[in-house]
């Protein structure tokens, strides 16, 4: 997905995990994924560099689809679709 496409996604829920380092963003994602429906999009905000690699791996394991990420000023917006 291109950055433009990612920015135009309809997000069902957004979690701000910028206040936690590894493995905080994963824990936040796990908590949030339970609150959305299958096929809906979850947005995770993280300032932790490792999340860029960790979240796709987490999605892979969970069967969720990692859609991509957008780099903002000092943090990342990561998008995933619940299976």
């Amino acid at each position: 997905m291109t950055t433009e496409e990612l920015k135009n996604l309809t997000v069902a829920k957004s979690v701000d995990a910028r206040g936690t380092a590894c493995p905080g963003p994963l824990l936040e994602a796990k908590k949030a994924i339970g609150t959305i429906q299958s096929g809906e999009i979850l947005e995770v905000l993280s300032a932790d560099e490792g999340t860029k690699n960790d979240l796709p791996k987490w999605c892979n394991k969970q069967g969720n689809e990692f859609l991509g990420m957008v780099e903002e000023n000092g943090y990342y917006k990561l998008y995933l679709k619940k299976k």
Partner: protein
Amino acid sequence: MEKSNEITMEKLLAELENLKAKTTQLENSAKKDQLSIAIISGDMDKIMAGMIISLAAAAMDTKVKLFFSFWGLAALRDPKKTVKGKNFVSKMFGCMLPKGYGKLKLSKHNMCGMGPMMMKNLMKKQHVLSLDEMFKEAAELGIEITACEMTMNLMGFKKEEFIDYPHFRIAGAATFVADAGESAMQWMI
């Protein structure tokens, strides 16, 4: 064609039964999506590493079972709890070992307690979960903690002085071996 090479329904069914049995056998021997860690060390950095990896695994829906033994047991002590009726050696162990995960030393650069203090400040600054928060998250994620009974007896620790943790049990080495045997990942820290 010889008769023995003929494919009959009976032969097919027999072969199918054979395959079914083999599949069940394989399924039973397959490793579970489970992480078993024997935590032997009682150093702050090592307990932290163990907890961080465990939390990441649990977030990925991997079942996590931690087996605390030897110096690792000190991390499970509750600083607010005291028990009576200990003998001299047990009291000595109780005095010498850190009282809970908040009082652990660093394995390197401890500098009489300066190290852990600096580390805790740094962790706060970098938004790393404190050990206290890590144990709370672990409880929420259903991470199991087992305290080694033999080392508890050896060092004179009683179950009454350990932290209140929802998935806590006391067991022996065989429990760890059995758990580790069915886990896809087995580590020791």
